[in-house]
């Protein structure tokens, strides 16, 4: 994998998302969710840990963007990564909320193929935290995010609007359809009843995964057909792992799939199938040139 290579003498630019950038809405939604959770619902999230995660992720993203890409950025992606980690990860150990967001942001810069990263930073951070932190990290039980179907419904509605904007509706449906299919197989295999196998779909953990992590345009296939198979395949692997009682399987399944994403991208590139960058950015040169709007 290639780290980013940027000509050292390229102009320094300010890059900020435009209002049409789907990450803006996602960030607003995640912020609202966090604030509501802390004030209205029984989110048991530690504000210090959340703040630490946000601070570390945003600062690191800005520093790396400045040093490596010679850009001054508004770190929306890092902000989302940090909030996802802050909401999903659970640990007494504050160091985890330094390490995990740092791993997530670093993965964007250090694990890349050609021009872009392929791991979802939140997913990468969570999986690494689960595997490498000596049992200190866990995913917070979904029920502590309100344990209320209305929370899931709101997430689903906002999520679907965003899926339309980033062209990932098909991916979501293939994942959910695949999950249902595998649940039926698990039921047939005697693992449990409908509530046990299908019930997790109603929880906030599933919703956050489905609408925030899975459809990351930078960490999913570039073609519509590819995304359909991708979502279904993630569900199949998740179902198999669930059958063998492996907890947090959807995070692992996505991780494994994104690890082979470069191959899919290579195939798509060979076939001439490219996807436009979904991020809507405004780029300003700080050396007196006129502002330029672009999708960089």
């Amino acid at each position: 994998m290639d780290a980013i290579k940027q000509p050292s003498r390229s102009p320094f630019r300010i890059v900020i998302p435009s209002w049409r950038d789907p990450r803006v809405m996602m960030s607003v939604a995640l912020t609202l969710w966090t604030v509501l959770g802390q004030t209205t619902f029984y989110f048991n999230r530690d504000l210090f840990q959340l703040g630490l995660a946000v601070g570390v992720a945003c600062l690191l993203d800005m520093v790396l963007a400045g040093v490596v890409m010679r850009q001054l950025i508004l770190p929306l992606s890092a902000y989302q990564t940090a909030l996802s980690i802050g909401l999903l990860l659970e640990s007494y150990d504050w160091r985890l909320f330094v390490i995990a967001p740092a791993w997530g942001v670093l993965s964007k810069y250090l694990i890349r193929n050609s021009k872009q990263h392929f791991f979802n930073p939140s997913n990468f951070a969570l999986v690494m935290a689960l595997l490498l932190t000596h049992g200190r990290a866990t995913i917070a039980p979904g029920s502590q995010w309100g344990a209320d179907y209305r929370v899931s419904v709101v997430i689903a509605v906002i999520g679907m609007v965003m899926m339309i904007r980033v062209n990932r509706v098909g991916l979501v449906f293939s994942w959910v359809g695949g999950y249902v299919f595998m649940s039926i197989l698990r039921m047939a295999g005697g693992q449990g009843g409908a509530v046990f196998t299908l019930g997790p779909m109603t929880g906030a953990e599933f919703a956050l995964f489905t609408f925030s992590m899975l459809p990351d345009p930078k960490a999913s296939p570039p073609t519509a057909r590819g995304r359909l198979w991708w979502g279904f395949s993630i569900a199949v692997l998740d179902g198999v792992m669930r059958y063998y009682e492996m907890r947090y399987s959807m995070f692992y399944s996505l991780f494994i799939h994104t690890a082979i994403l470069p191959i899919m991208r290579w195939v798509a590139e060979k076939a001439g199938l490219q996807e436009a960058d979904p991020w809507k950015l405004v780029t300003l040169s700080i050396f007196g040139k006129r502002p330029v709007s672009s999708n960089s």
Partner: protein
Amino acid sequence: MTTALAAGYVWLMPRAEQSRVVEVSFVEQAGDAGCLNVHSMVQLSDRFENVMPWLSSIGAAAAAGDSDGDGAADLYVTNSGRGESNRLFRNRGDGTFEDVTERAGVGCGNPEGASMHAIWGDIDNDGDLDLYVIKWAEPNTLFENRGDGTFQDISSRAGVDSWGYGNAATFLDYNRDGLLDILVGNYFADVVTHEKTGKLVRNNLWKPATTRVMHETFTHADNGGRNVFYRNLGDGRFEEVAQEIGLTFTGWTLSVGSGDLNNDGWPDLYLANDFGPDEFYLNTGATESPPRFRIVVNPKGHPGIGNDWWKGMNVDMGDVNNDGYLDIYVTNILERRYKTDEGNMLWLSGADTLSPGGRGFRNISQQVGTHDGGWGWGGKFADFNNDGLLDIYTVNGFVTGDADHNYWYAIQEMVTQTKNQTADAADWPVMGDRDLSGYERGRLFMQVESQEENSSTPAFVEMAELAGIADLYNGRGIAVADYNLDGWLDMYVANQGAPSCYYVNRTGKSDLRTKSSGRAYMSLDLVGRPDQPVIVGSRQLASTKDAVGARATIVTSAGQQMREVQGGMGFSSQSEHAIHFGFGENEILHSIRVRWPSGRVQDYDAEDAKEMLNSRVRIVEGSSEISKP
């Protein structure tokens, strides 16, 4: 990237094992001492067969109390199986016991439901301890001690025969009128909606009207049992006043505790709830008459003392850092193999301008090493090595089954679901012979001198295995007392569906030649005088005979120690009423102050204190006489 991952891995690597060792030693003697009880488990309707090991996982309880007034703590132990009798073990005075259940008439026998818990208290202030047995699906039973070794069931006459699913209870005198009141914590709801008729009916787990009896969420379930509070009217009767005094939450209560947490002289409450936030109530007696309980909300506006993990199993109170304020130990669940890093909580009292009364609590358990208690149940503060510092013993283990085939995955999948989907027991996967945190060893957290100068934060080392605590049973209740009257606190542990353990403290035995051998102790048996009330303003305040809520503070050359008489605290257990102090080898006693619930204060100087050293002393309210029974 590899470097970053490696750096994080190394940074979070657990520190090397502790090097500090504390001299403490126990030997298990339940069989030899004649107090062995093999707990029989409850067996509910077949409709709960898929989760039967779970639902039948509680009921082993033990209560220590000097029921015959001979100065040595006797033991009342529950059995939960149908037709099985509870047992009363009379202490012969040397830490050996005889089974006197039949003669005493306190067997109960579980004809319809199951015994779950029991507490001792002198409800009629006649000088002997009465017994209250808490049950599932049977009226709770209050036995009046006749004083001749026999007991009489007065539950119905006294009006304390509530029917429900009690797992917790404590005696306290919440209005300081010199009469013991009773708080009962219930687990399952007492009524449910009939699955066919839709009507509200009694929730009988032996003849179920529905299988929708489980908790509605894992985090803020309020479909549990209605807690009951009995105010003692003083004429042999009680009235139920829970709603009236502010106890309205219907959580899944597993343990209740009472103590003066803000030092205003009035007993406060802490309720440890499963599947929801714990409840912390402050008694309004200092500003309101008659007193009520006002629930404390954390800065987020939620009930509770701080961020908890919604699996409260046990509450005990003790001044763990000797600052004159009670701290709280709540057990919870920790199982790192299945990534449940939650753990027991040690709430340290401290100044906090944001909290009511200027006192708040912060959980220091992870910091001081007392949070890894496994799947925790009972947990008790006690000074096991007489060094003047409170230690903690906590038991654990949920369901013992096939160690290679566990139920963790099923639990964790159900945890992810939204409200109400966990409520129907029929939806839960079959548990069969699966294990769920079985084979765990209890944890003995011995407090050691903090290595930081002037630190008010305690430090602990875990010593269970080295201390000789080796059993892997699923422990539930721990009754701490100096059963053999040798000046060292012993423990009786009721194990679920397994033989009980009687751990006799051998720390101070001369043959061990330990440093601890030279330590001193003092055991105070406080006796209140309800007939000698104190007029405070427009109020008349009095202590109960068994002095529940009284506290003694001893000032020594090493600092101070404070202990409060408890009316039954800790999951499924009660330690003896007598309060115990330990002192280092060269510690010089300066003074003793006893603060009675009546408001009366008794002071003893260094000479008096010296006289009380290394003995069990009876102090009677309002009397300068010190007797050694």
